[in-house]
């Protein structure tokens, strides 16, 4: 039995998970990375995608995050998600609704910052669709 690592998932609205787990796979901006106990300290940005929590040799829960940051120390991994929800709660309709909303925003965007915001929204919607599919 390997040592466990403390996993914390926080969204602006609340602390979602705080529990010791075997391994966490986080969608980092430069590719997914798995975190075990004793990982090198690391700070990374997180792209929209799915976090896999491994316990007892299998994936115990999958959570969709809409981007954020991850901080890893030897004993703890903290993910600050902009938005988070269990993959099981995502439906294809929800994802498509967000996708079309994002598309609308992109066509409406006038300024650079608006365009950027719309593109972020688009990326989140696409990742969500992937997760739902």
């Amino acid at each position, binding site marked *: 039995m390997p040592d466990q690592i403390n996993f*914390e998932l926080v969204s602006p609205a609340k*602390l979602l998970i705080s529990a010791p787990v075997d391994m966490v796979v986080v969608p980092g901006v*430069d590719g997914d990375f798995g975190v075990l106990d004793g990982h*090198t300290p690391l*700070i990374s940005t997180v792209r929209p995608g799915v976090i896999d929590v491994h316990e007892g040799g299998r994936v115990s829960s999958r959570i969709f995050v809409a981007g954020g*940051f991850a*901080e890893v*120390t030897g004993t703890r991994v903290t993910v600050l998600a902009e938005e988070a929800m269990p993959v099981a709660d995502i439906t294809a309709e929800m994802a498509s609704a967000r996708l079309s909303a994002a598309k609308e925003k992109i066509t409406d965007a006038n300024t650079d910052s608006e365009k950027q915001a719309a593109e972020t929204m688009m990326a989140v919607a696409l990742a969500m669709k992937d997760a739902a599919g």
Partner: protein
Amino acid sequence: MPSLKDLRLRIVSVKSTRKITSAMKMVAASKLRRAQTAAESARPYAERMERMLGTLATSLAGQQGAPRLLAGTGDSNVHLIVMITADRGLCGGFNSTIVRNVKALAGQLIKEGKTVKIFPVGRKGREQIKRDYGANLIEGFEGLGRKGITFPEADQVANRITRMFEDGEFDVCTVVYNRFRSAIQQEVTRQQLIPFVAQEVTAGREVGGTGAVYEFEPSEEDILNVLLPRNLAVQVFRGMLESQASEQGARMTAMDNATRNAGDMINNLTIKYNRSRQAQITKELIEIISGAEAL
């Protein structure tokens, strides 16, 4: 000596006031519960974000070319004070304590020869500070969080602040808000947002004081460029949530007191009313009896 009718009207009016204050108390109590949960559940995120930023800031400290949100402009001539108050009154000293604190801060800064700009969030604070520091007021926000504060609303405020900073309109930004302790206790809190100051507690010392070196993905600068504006929004969000919960708490306490005072007043007035009624009856009786005796 007020007449019986005056007293009766007075009692009726105090009774209806009591009805209103006790209703307001109930409303505040139920809003408080929601606001308190929101404020408390937002704390972990804000704290962890600060800790992460603290770690990054210490590892970048002293290096050239740190982002300006972190390092500041190098000057401290123009101060921006973000003042978070409520849109409504009738909540005891809630708004006044904030305003008093901001006035003290502004006064001190002005004495030191700095320029002060006050950025009011919430209508009441703006109204109260207009008399003394009207010239320092800039346009603010009102009517946020009617149905509970949402993150996009806080983001809107934070964006204004970032934009102003980028336009070079100020050097240092401090936010003043009521931190929620309990329903009857609020604590005026000043927090410096720009440049970022790491709280002592945040510096992630649990790594084991050996100066553990973090890896960064992508680079430190890239992370900071995203994290800093984000942190600003989160801290503003936290301030607004705390303020909202404090407001409801303060209002509940104030209205509870008002209801109790109204009750006392009704009792006193009722005693007075009965006394004067009796006095009048006695007087009439005496008049009749002495009239009869005179015959």
